[in-house]
């Protein structure tokens, strides 16, 4: 390699970094801007939005107001409840169904797999009219259970689809060896198969969780009551009410973003390796 070629190569890499850095800034700027301004006084928010909070401008007045004037902690709890329980159910029932579909030959196997996979492409929202009528007749409107059931149904198709692929890769010898020891099919699944596909289950968990946590549609329609309000709905209504109180609005937005940010710090590698390995083709 000639020196000029090397130089050119370096310059080219520099441009690549510049482009990527530029886009990273575009992606993060709005979020960072809201978070830093949520810690500033009203005058600093307007006079100097781009600066970090300093001793003169630092204030938690927005956060105090949000915590006082809204039941945001209750909304957090509600969101947690209607995310974690369906998540557990999707992973448990989804991996059980995926195991049955990939392991046993029975009449209608492929048809059943197709039926379940339909839910990946056809959004569950289209059935809202009937879902609401079902919930009314079951007396479940404004209960956590309504959201838990709907979110479980929403998460299952994709979970089953991805887990079927992974469970299908478990070597046959392993299963046969276990069966020779006289293990029941149910114990075989829970004690041997499930621990083996744990990494795949973790990836599916992240995919399943995010749409549930972020959903506004079903909380708005099935559980808008104060006791069951989720964080998305709570923040949306709080902001509608306090639109002119910038400190509170910025604090409420920051609080709503926080859990996902924290989670992302821990699970981003999991999620991204799942996206780049599972979804190829």
């Amino acid at each position, binding site marked *: 390699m000639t020196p000029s070629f090397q130089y050119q190569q370096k310059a080219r*890499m520099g441009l690549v970094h510049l482009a990527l850095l530029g*886009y990273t800034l575009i*992606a993060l700027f709005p979020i960072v801007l809201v978070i830093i301004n949520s810690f500033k006084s009203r005058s600093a928010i307007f006079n100097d939005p781009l600066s970090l909070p300093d001793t003169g401008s630092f204030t938690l007045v927005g956060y105090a107001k949000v915590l006082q004037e809204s039941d945001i902690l209750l909304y957090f709890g509600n969101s947690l409840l209607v995310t974690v329980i369906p998540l557990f159910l999707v992973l448990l029932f989804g991996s*059980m169904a995926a195991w*049955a579909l990939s392991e046993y030959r029975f009449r209608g196997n492929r048809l059943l797999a197709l039926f379940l996979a339909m839910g990946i492409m056809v959004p569950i*929202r289209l059935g809202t*009219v009937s879902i609401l009528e079902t919930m009314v007749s079951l007396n479940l409107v404004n209960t956590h259970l309504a959201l838990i059931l709907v979110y479980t149904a929403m998460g299952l198709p994709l979970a089953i689809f991805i887990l079927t692929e992974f469970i299908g890769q478990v070597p046959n010898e392993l299963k046969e060896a276990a069966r020779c020891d006289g293990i029941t099919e149910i114990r075989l699944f829970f004690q041997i198969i499930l621990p083996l596909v744990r990494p795949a289950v973790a990836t599916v968990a992240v995919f399943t969780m995010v749409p549930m946590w972020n959903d506004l549609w079903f909380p708005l329609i099935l559980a808008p009551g104060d006791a069951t309000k989720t964080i998305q709905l709570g923040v949306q209504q709080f902001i509608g009410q306090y639109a002119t109180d910038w400190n509170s609005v910025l604090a409420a937005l920051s609080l709503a973003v926080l859990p996902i940010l924290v989670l992302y710090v821990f699970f981003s590698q999991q999620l991204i390796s799942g996206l780049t390995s599972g*979804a190829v083709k």
Partner: protein
Amino acid sequence: MQRAFPWHLIFFLAPAVIIYTVFSAYPLLDTLRLSFFTDSESGERSFAGLSNFVTLLGNAVWSEAFWNAMWNNTQFFLIHLLVQNPIGLGLAALLSLKGLRGARTYRTLIFLPTLLSVVIIGFIWQLILSPLWGVSENFLYALGLGHYFDAWLGKESSALITLSLISVWQFIGIPMMLIYASLLSIPDELLEAAKVDGASPFRIFWRIKVPLILPTLGLVTILTFVGNFNTFELVYAVKGALAGPDYSTDIMGTFFYRTFFGYQSQLGSATMGATVATMMFLVILTGVMAYFYLVQRRLTRYQL
């Protein structure tokens, strides 16, 4: 395997199949069925044939609102397609360059907005674009483009485009990741062979890599299509259920919501809501079928 009744099969399948059937598959079919019924004022439900569809498409008020939402939604989708795919492809191409340091950090950070709630993102951009705060206005002035600033979200002519771009900004991570993964899966020998034959990097990209990732672009497009035609949150968060100004940001999701739930003076109707949902289902079904029969079939020959 065994002759006895396969109880274990029932054990493994029943919970998932029952929940999915009762709360997803059945409601969808039932919604399609409800679109052929109508409720009287006393709340009695009776079969009405195609009359809901005749109202939706034939009545001047209804059909204007319906086609307005449909056309807005189409624009919303087309803007996604035109902006998100090229940017996603560009970012993925840069990220997949050999010897790039920090690729992992870049992709992790660029993917972040995709995970945040649409409601929150909507509010954040509303603040940033607000003339009250002036952040974007000052930014444009700093670039010497200040006189181009406008209250984009408030204008009939620009609100829908602005919302589409906000949505692209948020979800760019998905096309980027999927394309990135498919670029990484191209075998090295293929690229080496082209290099030995003297092809320039530019030519290798357009003549070898892009054709090989066309199936992924197809997948991204259909995912975007399905997502766009049932989204609701962004418009609802930023513009409310009335999707103003003057319905210029009304899309199928918000139109469905108003029809079903009613808003202000307009009374909600379950059966008309079901009719709108049925139309959304038909649109999505058409898109998905077109994808499977046309795009997928034509593109498979490129697959490795």
